[in-house]
């Protein structure tokens, strides 16, 4: 499927990116430390139970994984990306089954319990979706111009989005479509497809917002109170 030559691997280190990541890591740890240390009884916990230390452990694990992925190169990742995507879709379906997905005292069923820790399939889905989309869009410009390619790409963006909405987790769900569209845009999907889609979607969003904010209450869509508050305070953040 891949026809364009990819950038050859180099020994060059992408310093800006590494610095940016390190900076984010530092700030993140400090934030966690400053908010959790004031909590009642925080100082009596052993160090490995304190949140900012936990975060450092995750950093180490993540960095190790990152190095491993770099060593692996991107061709195996590209090959397996489609499989990973469908597996994560499967997980997104699984989490909706009451016996498997847990609610954690909240309304939404988002977690899969694995004993010592839980994970949210939607987080995994974000990553696998990204890889799959990159792989799928890496094709000649002529193919990208075909409407069918666009429709498939859009479909694969909407599928996780719909599943996550079912959990429900509006925030995570809304990530997929803009992500997919941005990738399609950069990859070279014709602008007219994208603009039409954005125009149509924009119109629907405006209508929905108008319904939520201004319609008589019996015609309004049901939103959680916190979501409604977010709408009122800052409609652009939706």
């Amino acid at each position: 499927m891949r026809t364009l030559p990819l950038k050859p691997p180099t020994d060059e280190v992408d310093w800006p990116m590494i610095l940016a990541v390190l900076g984010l890591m530092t700030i993140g740890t400090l934030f966690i430390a400053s908010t959790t240390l004031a909590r009642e009884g925080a100082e009596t916990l052993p160090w490995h139970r304190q949140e900012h230390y936990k975060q450092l452990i995750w950093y180490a694990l993540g960095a190790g994984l990152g190095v491993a992925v770099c060593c692996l190169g991107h061709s195996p990742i590209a090959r397996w990306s489609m499989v990973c995507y469908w597996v994560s879709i499967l997980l997104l379906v699984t989490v909706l089954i009451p016996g498997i997905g847990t609610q954690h005292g909240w309304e939404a069923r988002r977690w899969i319990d694995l004993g010592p820790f839980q994970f949210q399939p939607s987080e995994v889905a974000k990553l696998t979706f990204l890889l799959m989309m990159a792989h799928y869009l890496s094709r000649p410009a002529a193919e990208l111009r075909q409407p069918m390619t666009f429709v498939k790409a859009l479909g694969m963006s909407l599928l996780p989005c719909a599943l996550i909405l079912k959990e429900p987790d509006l925030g995570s769900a809304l990530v997929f479509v803009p992500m997919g569209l941005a990738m399609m845009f950069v990859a070279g999907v014709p602008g007219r497809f994208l603009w039409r889609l954005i125009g149509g979607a924009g119109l629907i969003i405006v209508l929905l917002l108008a319904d939520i904010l201004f319609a008589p209450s019996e015609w309004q869509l049901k939103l959680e109170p916190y979501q409604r508050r977010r709408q009122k305070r800052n409609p652009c953040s939706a």
Partner: protein
Amino acid sequence: MLFFDQFRKGGERLQTLAIGITLGLLLLLAGLWHIQIVSAKRYRASLETQTYRTVRIPAIRGKLLDRDGRVLAENRPSYNLNLYLEELRPQFQEAFTKARAGRRLTRAERAQLAVEVRWLVASNTIDRISRFLGEASTITDRDFRLHHHQWPYRPLAVRENLSPAQIARFMENAPNLPGLDIEVQPLRHYPCGSMAGHLLGYLTRDDMARDDDEGGFSYSLPSYEGAVGLEYLFDDELRGKPGTKSVVVNSLCYREGEMIWLTASPGHNAVLALDLPMQQAAFEALRSLGPGTRGALVVMDTTNGDVLAMVSSPAYDPNEFVSPLSHERWAVLNDPRLRPMFNRTTQGAYNPGSIFKIITALAALEHGLDPHAQIQVQPDPRRPGRGAIFLGRRKIDDTVPPGDYDFKRAFMHSSNSYFVQVGLQTGRDRLLAMGQQFLLGRHFGLGTRQEVSGYFPSPQDVLGIWTEGNLANACIGQEITVTPLQMAVMTAAVANGGKLLRPRLVHRLERAEPGPEGAVAKAFPPRLLGELKVHARSLATVREAMLADTEEPGGTGFAAFQQKNPLTGQITPRIPGFRVAGKTGTAQVKKGATVIDHITWFVAFGPYDNARYAVVVMVESGDSGGRTCAPVACRVFQALKQRFEPAPATAPRLVSRK
């Protein structure tokens, strides 16, 4: 540059995307700037209100003193045991970790567990201290949870008013009892207990924040406010100015520190007209009739209106109200028959009965009654040897035998027929006008929340309503009601030649810490309410008749004030050298036509030649004025003589035996 280089990489579309994302990030940055810099002041202000709790410190309440500075109400240190919740926090955390035992819990479960664990730790601590103090704790789960929810920064009062033994036991074990400490708070104390309970009144506790006062207090330390009596009347002056302190709290509302902004300034002391030894004598005199006596006693200085003693029985002990009262105790204090909460001296309106004949007599004498004229008392055909008066078909019984009576004889024997006849001759308007001169039917405006005016109509009020029968009843004190204090003012006016004096309860308010302005903050001089428009001769005639009541054989008060030597048969006064003039009264309480109860009275003044003291005794359900009340008054006059007669300059002479 590193930053802009990124925009030159990749194709045109990638650059567009990069710019789009950068713009989005700039928007976030602008939002951050708005929150952190533009709205900073607002957030800082709300932070301040979250970290400070303003607490009101009640001032030390002023004392109540008798006329010579003897203490009637003061403040005693109360040692209270407080639980400081912030010091229990490590224990809360430890117990929580143990109770959780590494289980996975939802947020709601965690919160529930935390609440349970806190109560467990606190109740264990309280339980341990209760064992040391030898007293069961009274704090419930609900109280604790409420306290922790509302005021986690405020110490929880575990026990108030510890005994010295309990303090010692606590101090011994204090190191093993974290979170507990003793705090000293002033507590109202009435050293003479129920002796002057009604006059002093009592305090009610007010634990809640008082936002209406100076506003903005998160909570007030327990403060008290006068409910009734002098504690109520001078509440503002006694209370002083509360201070303010700030408690610094952390994000969980636990206490971190304290700062006192304004120290409390103590309230004024009130110096009463009351004389404590006299009050005690009066209290004991009235109690000599029995513990369940329902009665009132007032001793008043006839020269200036000073209330030297004021007793209502049964009495309550104001100390009881300082700590919360049990329901049982409350029920006892509100017994519908005994009514210990009721100040009978000013709150009780009773038929005066025959003591009202003083006013009937004055009205008749002013109208031209000749005190020497003989008026006939008709015999009662049903009761041989007793008189009666017939008004149409109605008969009013008399206690005296039939015959001719002049004024003095009728007065000292308290003849109903005589006074009904002269009263009817005098007429309704003149009689009622005379009563109004004595300020009957009006209250004195004492401001103690314990005063009623009694029922005494003006002539217009009863125009066309009162029949001759009603007027006849009024002549002998049946149709109208008065308070014992009103009768004291009446007696004093008869004794002092017609001056109506306002009953003076308090001499002055004094500053707790005398400044350059001197000690007296406010003085209450004696006040004349009016003067009787009667001839001195009429008053003298009444006074003579009152003297005859206690000194001449046959007078209704004779037996109480004179004693007969059983061996020699010689009659001597019970109070040598102190002549008392008085009038008895026995009013009937009727239900329909039957008499169900008696209100007995004795009003008197003395010494006769130089009147100084007026004494009023009223007893509900007494036997008769002469038998029930006059002996009580005699005891009071004995005490008055002992207390105020100038002591002999030398030691008493030994009486040589012949």
